[in-house]
């Protein structure tokens, strides 16, 4: 294996987690972060025709969540956030405000911004044989 690649994916648990072939024997620590990459097409220099290298396709950033002697479980650690939503609340006038309406000041309008929910970003199509690079 090339020095750049620290380990290889041996199993894809789900869209958030993968198992790699390095563990305590390679001094993997809990919380350690890696970049998960797949190997793509070979890139050639169009000017010289020289073969440069294979494109590394970024699947996502992962962190170690469980370490065993020869394997480790890595889970996506990138966060994505839903879009913020704006909510407008109009309060109808009651008796007291009816009086104030007479003077030109009627219903009250409240605009509330609801922050989008944060969630863990799923990995982008992880495959067995993908590699991890130390971050």
């Amino acid at each position, binding site marked *: 294996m090339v020095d750049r690649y620290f380990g290889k994916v041996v199993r894809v648990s789900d869209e958030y987690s993968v198992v790699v072939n390095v563990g305590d024997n390679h001094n993997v620590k809990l919380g350690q972060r890696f970049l998960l990459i797949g190997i793509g097409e070979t*890139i050639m220099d*169009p*000017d010289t025709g020289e073969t440069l290298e294979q*494109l590394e396709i*970024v699947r996502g950033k992962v962190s170690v969540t469980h370490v065993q002697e020869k394997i480790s479980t890595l889970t996506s650690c990138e966060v994505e*956030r839903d879009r913020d939503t704006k909510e407008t609340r109009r309060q109808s006038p009651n008796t007291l405000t009816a009086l104030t309406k007479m003077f030109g000041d009627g219903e009250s309008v409240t605009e509330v911004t609801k922050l*989008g929910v944060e969630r863990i970003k799923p990995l982008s199509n992880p495959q067995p044989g993908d590699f991890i690079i130390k971050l």
Partner: protein
Amino acid sequence: MLKKIGSGVFSLSGAAILIGVIGGISSVVTIFMNTSEQVSVKWVLLSVILAVYMIIILLKIAHDAVDAGKPLPAFERPFKFVPDVGVFVIHKNENFVMNTIVGCYSQEDGIDRLAYIGTVLLIQSQLIQIKILADLEVLKSIPVGPDELKLIEIRPVVPLESLQRLIRQEHENG
């Protein structure tokens, strides 16, 4: 490189140095060697070949040293677009640092316009991947062909106004 060496050698100072060096060597040689003595041609040939080898090696070292000292350009032209992952591929250049924001400028009819804002997604041993973060809708479609890609210049510089627009957009989209 050769032009530089040529202009250096065939100059007034170069000629003066050359005359000085030849004079110095000949005076040293005449002190220690008998110049009237006949020597075999094989020794002359050997010394000429060794001298030529030395000159070639030194020229190569000088050439590499000049190349290494050249500053890298502050821009790169993409030579490939990978649609599956939405990245431009450029040659490795130390001006592009991981996770930094870059600008992709379209150069058409002599006009330089910021077309995309991107980020340095991954630095490989010979390549750099630039992921497009925002399409400023300057171009109708993302350039894919080699001729279209030649009109794009990627620089590690983005105008503040465009950056603020991107931040606003990111904030709205969450």
